[in-house]
């Protein structure tokens, strides 16, 4: 048996697969070895060409009609059989929720070493050095990996410049998809309020210091007066349901980078701090002068939000209420 060689990239989203391919090719991660892509049941006739254009030297395709669901129970055994055929030294997938589940299932099926949330990957001699977020996003860990074969889930948004396209080479792989182990009852898009917190210049975020849902207009008025978007902490979105998920800032919510971040009634749990770390200037308003948020703020105002917001509105010449 020859030693594993080259890199195999897979994502059920073609754009993500292209990103993985370009990342590999631009850095010559395969060190001259083959860079390949896998298609699992996807039927669009253009996909192989799109993947070759992003640098896939071989596109391994396992077809099915009808196409299988994007379900790890169906995709993982198929990807595992392509891995057995291709014998790559690395399998790259996207570190999305689906991608991580797929990575774990494939790794479990083949007993391979795996890692997720990887933001940077390079070869150093006979090992791989990778960087990933650790400690709930508060730290960057550097890990080294020495295994003949590994599955790595890369965080989307990689620096992946254009690369010279590879000539189109498609290899159809024989095989079939197993039946799904779960029954999909419903799939719906999350309702978004059209908020894109990642793009906001200013954000006013409210936390558990807000006593009741009826007080949200108070916070919204301050946000409007400052020309800011409204964010919230996890308990207000996930537990209380006062805000939809697109307002939620934190480890499992949105990561933001505004010029001005005003945290109102936010205690400063580590999972929240990760989401706001990219802010240029942070203001914290909190009743508890010992709240951890003050350690992460440029300007801290110890005080009651129910007094301070009306005072700020007064000075700004604004009032509480719905927009006219």
């Amino acid at each position, binding site marked *: 048996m020859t030693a594993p060689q080259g890199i195999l990239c897979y994502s059920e989203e073609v754009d993500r697969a292209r990103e993985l391919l370009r990342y590999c090719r631009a850095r010559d991660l395969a060190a001259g070895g083959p860079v390949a892509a896998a298609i699992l049941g996807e039927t669009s006739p253009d996909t192989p060409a799109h993947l070759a254009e992003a640098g896939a030297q071989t596109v391994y395709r396992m077809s099915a009609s009808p196409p299988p669901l994007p379900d*790890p129970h169906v995709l993982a055994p198929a990807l595992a059989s392509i891995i057995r055929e291709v014998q790559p030294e690395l399998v790259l997938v996207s570190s*999305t*929720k*689906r991608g*991580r*589940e797929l*990575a*774990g*299932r494939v*790794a*479990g099926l083949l*007993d391979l070493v*795996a*890692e*997720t*949330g990887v933001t940077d990957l390079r070869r150093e001699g006979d090992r791989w*050095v990778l960087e990933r*977020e*650790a*400690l*709930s*996003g*508060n*730290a*960057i860990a*550097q*890990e080294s990996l020495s295994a003949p074969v*590994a599955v790595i889930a890369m965080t989307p948004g990689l620096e992946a410049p254009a690369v010279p396209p590879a000539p189109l080479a498609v290899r159809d792989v024989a095989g079939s998809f197993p039946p799904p*182990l*779960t*029954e*999909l009852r*419903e*799939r*719906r*898009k*999350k309702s978004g309020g059209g908020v894109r917190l990642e793009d906001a210049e200013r954000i006013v975020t409210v936390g558990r210091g807000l006593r009741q849902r009826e007080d949200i207009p108070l916070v919204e008025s301050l946000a409007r007066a400052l020309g800011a978007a409204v964010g919230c902490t996890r308990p207000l979105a*996930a*537990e209380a349901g006062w805000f939809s998920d697109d307002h939620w800032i934190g480890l*499992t919510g949105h990561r933001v980078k505004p*010029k*001005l971040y005003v945290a109102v009634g936010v205690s400063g749990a*580590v999972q929240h701090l990760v989401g706001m*770390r990219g802010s240029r200037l*942070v203001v914290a308003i909190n009743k508890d002068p010992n709240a951890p948020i*003050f*350690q*992460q703020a*440029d*300007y*801290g*105002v*110890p005080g009651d939000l129910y007094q*301070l917001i*009306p*005072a*700020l509105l*007064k*000075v*700004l010449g604004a009032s509480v209420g719905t927009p006219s």
Partner: protein
Amino acid sequence: MGDELRIGVAVKHGIDVGLVKADPSTGTVDLSSAPRKTSDFDKNAVEEAVRIRERRGKGQVTAISVGAPAARESLREALAIGADEAILVSDPALPQPDTRAVARALAAVYRKVGGFDLFLFGEGSTDHFSGLVGPRVAGELGIPSLSHVRRLQVQDGEIEVERDLEEEVEVLRARGPVVVTVGQEINTPRLPTFMANLKASKREIRQWTLTDLGLSGTVLQSHLRTDRVAVPQVPRKRQVLSGSSPEEVAQRLLSVLRSEGVLP
């Protein structure tokens, strides 16, 4: 799936991220000496398991931890929340098991105890957050996994979940045995009472080695090593603004923000 649900819950005794302190001169963290606690989402998993048993009025909740002997602490917490029994897998041959070793050990426990109808996990650990262990166990055992679950119902031998993906919400059904990973949204774990803690401290915790599970420490040696953990320092001014009245503080804050150039 029988009437008496058998529920397994995996519990990690992980690093207490809130208490981690970086060395100010190097900006790095020494993880070997970092304080530890039960991983946040694993507590949600234990709570959910106990709630399912409570709703049905019967069933058995087994908490399992793989790691150093100190993981007993997290198992005691699981018992205090309401788990019926606890199993620690600890072996000097594997002082710091990686996700692969933990998953192999959990799958081996599953086989040794004759399986669970429902095997619950946190969707990721507070310290490492790979999200791999649950799906790995399911992959090895060839059973379904349902990840990122925020609502779970057991009905007529079927498990129905609502899972939260980045852009979508899915409702899925599966027949047990099944692996489910949960996030913080699924519940708020109870704070055990003093009496519950006291009782849990007296309970026996079964301890198994890798050999007891038919596994080998050599085979499970980690191929993944953490070389360095750095905490990016964002310097903040940490100035406190105060005044004799809320209006005065408000004035002060707004003029500071204007001079910083973040307000027009």
